[in-house]
């Protein structure tokens, strides 16, 4: 046992050496046209040696170390607590949601401009997370190309504005509906697929949309993107210093207050908040409706669901379409917030982040998704102090999270639908 451990540790240390030495220890220097290979500074060599020793010691004493880590898990105060009874949990979740929404309403009036801007981004991710939650968390269809629908929403607004001068409010429903149409269309080829195969097809779809946007230069301006996308207006009132589009008035002139650039940020934030709450309520309602239960039935057991007369086609398509609809929503807001969109904003990483939000939050749980969206967006900002190690800290936090709480921040509370004995009719603990 000990000998085996020792051999294993030696092997790991060796691997560390052969990986890190060429990468860190050797430098390529260009001198004119020729390139020479030089060694690194002594400091780097010491660092590499140190890393090798650490890996060696860790692997040698791994059983002991892992045991200590296991005890750390026991320190976690949440671990031994009795799970809350169902009714209490549902009440708690509702209470927490109301509290978050109320807090969010007052946020722009107490926070700085930058904080409000960041909060708008958080809200966009919340909408995305809630939408993907329908597809992944409830219907159990692993979608890695969710960003495509986000892009469709954003580009719908961008293009409609560029060619036809559509405003934010006109584009919002169109963008969402067009994204939903794309979701519906994508639904067809993936009907028969499950799990890994589905993930690969959706991944491909996400890339197709991005590459199309990149290469349809005549239409989308390719990698240069579309700029000058207008902000939302309030009943024809603009929030800029000067009115850009004819026929509009400006907010500060109508209300006769001095111009403040923060107005625009706050207004956009509030619109996003309203849309996020709208998303939350609509999906919350859907989950309690038969369509929501059919999503869950399909996730739990496809054959059983079909044996009860549920149509696989209808259930999957509805999940994809509704998920895509809200991504289109988020995309339109994003385009308006940034004022500029390019295919760069819709890379695979975005899909991965939204998926991480859903998984971190606890599949299917709405409160969990909201908390995870806040965490995933804020954490990299907080970690700015660590400058270049920012993403490393972020990654480490995710790994630890999955080790300690694999079920997510707040695992889904299953909604009970109780049939009353006395009178007909359904009560649900919404």
């Amino acid at each position, binding site marked *: 046992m000990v000998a085996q451990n020792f051999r294993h540790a030696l092997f790991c240390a060796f691997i560390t050496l052969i990986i890190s030495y060429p990468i860190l220890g050797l430098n390529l220097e260009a001198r004119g046209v020729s390139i020479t290979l030089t060694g690194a500074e002594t400091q780097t060599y010491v660092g590499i040696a140190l890393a090798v020793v650490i890996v060696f010691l860790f692997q040698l004493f791994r059983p002991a170390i892992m045991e200590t880590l296991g005890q750390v898990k026991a320190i976690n105060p949440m671990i031994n607590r009795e799970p809350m009874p169902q009714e209490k949990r549902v009440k708690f979740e509702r209470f927490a949601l109301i509290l978050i929404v109320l807090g969010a309403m007052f946020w722009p009036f107490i926070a700085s401009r930058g904080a409000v801007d960041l909060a708008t981004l958080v809200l966009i991710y919340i909408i995305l997370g809630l939408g993907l939650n329908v597809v992944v968390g409830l219907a159990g269809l692993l979608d890695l190309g969710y960003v495509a629908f986000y892009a469709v929403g954003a580009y719908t607004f961008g293009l409609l504005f560029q060619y036809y001068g559509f405003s934010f409010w006109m584009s919002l429903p169109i963008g969402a509906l067009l994204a939903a149409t794309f979701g519906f269309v994508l639904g067809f080829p993936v009907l028969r697929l499950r799990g890994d195969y589905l993930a690969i097809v959706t991944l491909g779809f996400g890339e197709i949309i991005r590459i199309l946007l990149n290469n349809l230069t005549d239409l989308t301006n390719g990698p240069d993107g579309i700029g000058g996308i207008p902000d939302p207006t309030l009943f024809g009132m603009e929030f800029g210093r000067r009115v850009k589009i004819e026929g509009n008035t400006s907010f500060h002139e109508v209300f006769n207050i001095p111009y403040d650039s923060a107005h625009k940020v706050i207004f956009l934030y509030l619109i996003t908040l309203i849309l996020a709450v709208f998303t939350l309520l609509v999906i919350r309602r859907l989950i309690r409706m038969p369509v929501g*239960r*059919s999503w*869950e*039935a399909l996730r739990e057991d496809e054959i059983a669901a079909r044996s*009860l*007369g549920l*149509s696989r086609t209808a259930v999957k398509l509805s999940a994809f379409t509704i998920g895509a609809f809200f991504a289109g929503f988020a995309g339109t807001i994003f385009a308006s917030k940034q004022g500029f969109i390019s295919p760069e904003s819709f890379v695979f990483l975005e899909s991965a982040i939204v998926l991480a939000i859903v998984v971190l939050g606890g599949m299917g749980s709405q409160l969990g998704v909201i908390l995870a969206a806040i965490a995933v967006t804020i954490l990299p900002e907080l970690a700015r102090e660590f400058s270049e190690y920012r993403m490393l800290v972020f990654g480490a936090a995710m790994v630890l999270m999955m080790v300690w709480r694999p079920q997510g921040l707040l695992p889904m509370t299953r909604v*009970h639908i109780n049939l009353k004995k006395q009178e007909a009719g359904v009560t649900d603990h919404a």
Partner: protein
Amino acid sequence: MLVLENIHTHYGKIEALHGVSVEIKKGEIVSLIGANGAGKTTLLMTVCGDPQASSGRVLFQGEDITHKPTAQIMRSGIAIVPEGRRVFPGLTVEENLHMGGFFTSKQEVRRSQDHVFELFPRLKERRNQRAGTMSGGEQQMLAIGRALMTKPEMIILDEPSLGLAPLIIKQIFEIISSLRDEGITVFLVEQNAKQALKLADRGYVLETGRIRLEDSGANLLANEDVQKAYLGG
């Protein structure tokens, strides 16, 4: 009630059923027995429309359902208890039953649920338990109960005794015979030939995609070939 006329079913190029004809009359219990790979499950799946028969006809209550989509067939009065029980593991017993009543009105769901609880008092005790945490026998009861929630004229059971203890199997077969008393036609597919034939009004023996024998349950039990092949001599 259910008539299969000269059914051929293919998986890709492979023909699994070579012209099978079966008839089930209203109020009967009909058992289909056969060895592994004989095509029992294929036959059931053909009734459900997945895969669809490549030739021949499936008639249910006089209506041709051969090429109807599965979802529509399953809503037309046939219920199936799939092989291996297939309850929704993460849902509670009650929620499982409600899924069975997905296409019926709320009052009706309540009524059928009370009825299922009457048939299976055990399920009532466990109504708030997650289905995945129950024993195999209880899950089988739940699967049957869930199928009953669809208010079927006919119920198809695919290997209900699979992986259950002998005592539980006895219980399950008692339940199946009580279904007949309720006026539900039963089509039972089993490897446990002895129990299945004892219970059945009529039986079919399926061998490599063809019906080999067809007779009353008692006659098949007494048949020497059947005894040799399926009842251990």
